[in-house]
């Protein structure tokens, strides 16, 4: 299987995630009074569901637009860590490819790539870029398309569809295959405990602090066990 096909296959199950999540954003965006064009453009330009919901929610509550946008961006700061984590694998790709990867670097594409690249040390940068493109090939169109569907269908979507469960399920499904060593497990447990303990920190700061400490814990456990 080519790296691109491999990436597409690994990304495919996230259709079941991106479709409900995108639809959820489409419904909420339309109910918040955004035009169809704006809701779809929001998903296509920003490509970050959690931050879009944050910004939209705050704007709805009457927060100043600048505050709403900055809060949404704070939710996205974690992706700076994803960007750094991919440097050893994709850093020597051509600049234009790195620019496109930046546009498509979401939780799903990052997590799949990180897990696969550690398993495939023989891959060239070209192979890795192709794999990354494969992971995005379903996820990105599904995200934008589902937003459009949600915005059009709106209240016509059946109530029994548990749209909200798609988000936690996506993250668990991304993390579970990464738990390959005691160091990975230690980082994950640290992340959970500290995020819950730091839930009161504003601007999504609890997650960022928890993540930085969890990274250090993982690296330290690796150093001591290998």
């Amino acid at each position, binding site marked *: 299987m080519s790296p691109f096909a491999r990436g597409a296959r*690994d990304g495919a*199950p*996230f259709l079941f*995630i991106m479709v409900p999540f995108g639809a959820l954003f489409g419904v909420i965006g339309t109910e918040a009074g955004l035009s169809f064009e*704006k809701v779809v453009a*929001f998903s296509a*330009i*920003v*490509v970050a569901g959690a931050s879009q919901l944050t*910004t939209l929610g705050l*704007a709805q509550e009457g927060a100043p*637009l600048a505050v*709403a*946008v900055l809060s*949404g*961006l704070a939710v996205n700061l*974690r992706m*700076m*860590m*994803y*960007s*750094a*984590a991919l*440097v*050893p694998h*994709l850093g*020597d790709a051509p*600049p234009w490819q*790195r620019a496109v*990867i*930046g*546009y498509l670097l979401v939780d799903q594409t*990052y*997590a799949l790539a*990180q897990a696969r690249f550690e398993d495939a040390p023989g891959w060239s940068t070209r192979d890795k870029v192709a794999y990354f493109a494969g992971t995005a090939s379903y996820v990105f169109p599904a995200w934008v398309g589902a937003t459009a569907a949600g915005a059009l269908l709106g209240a016509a979507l059946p109530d029994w569809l548990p749209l909200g469960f798609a*988000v*936690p*399920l996506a*993250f*668990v*499904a991304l*993390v*579970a*295959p990464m738990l*390959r060593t005691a160091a990975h497990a230690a*980082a*994950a447990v640290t*992340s*959970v405990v*500290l*995020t*819950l303990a730091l839930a009161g920190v504003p601007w999504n700061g*609890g*997650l960022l602090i*928890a993540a*930085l400490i*969890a*990274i250090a814990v993982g*690296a330290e456990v*690796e150093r001591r066990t290998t």
Partner: protein
Amino acid sequence: MTWLAIGIMGLATWAIRWSFLGLIGDRPLPDWIRRHLRYTGVAVMPGLVAPLVLTPAEGGVEVAALAGCAAALAVGAWRRDAMWAVAAGAAAYAAAALL
């Protein structure tokens, strides 16, 4: 939401994602930094999901969501494959919700 706000948010989000990948490029990283970067995913994502399922909502912690996440975690770690994790999580959620 204005078009300007959407545009600024899109540009800034892209800059966040491009940052290290675009600016560091192929300059070599020291081993200790590479060792830390390997744990980025497992350090960020559990923290994203934990408050969603473990913080009680109005009706208390949702049992079906907990069951779904537990099944996805167990099967995903065992099969080392997201497809199995999604299937197991959805099945456990549906089973727990119906019971």
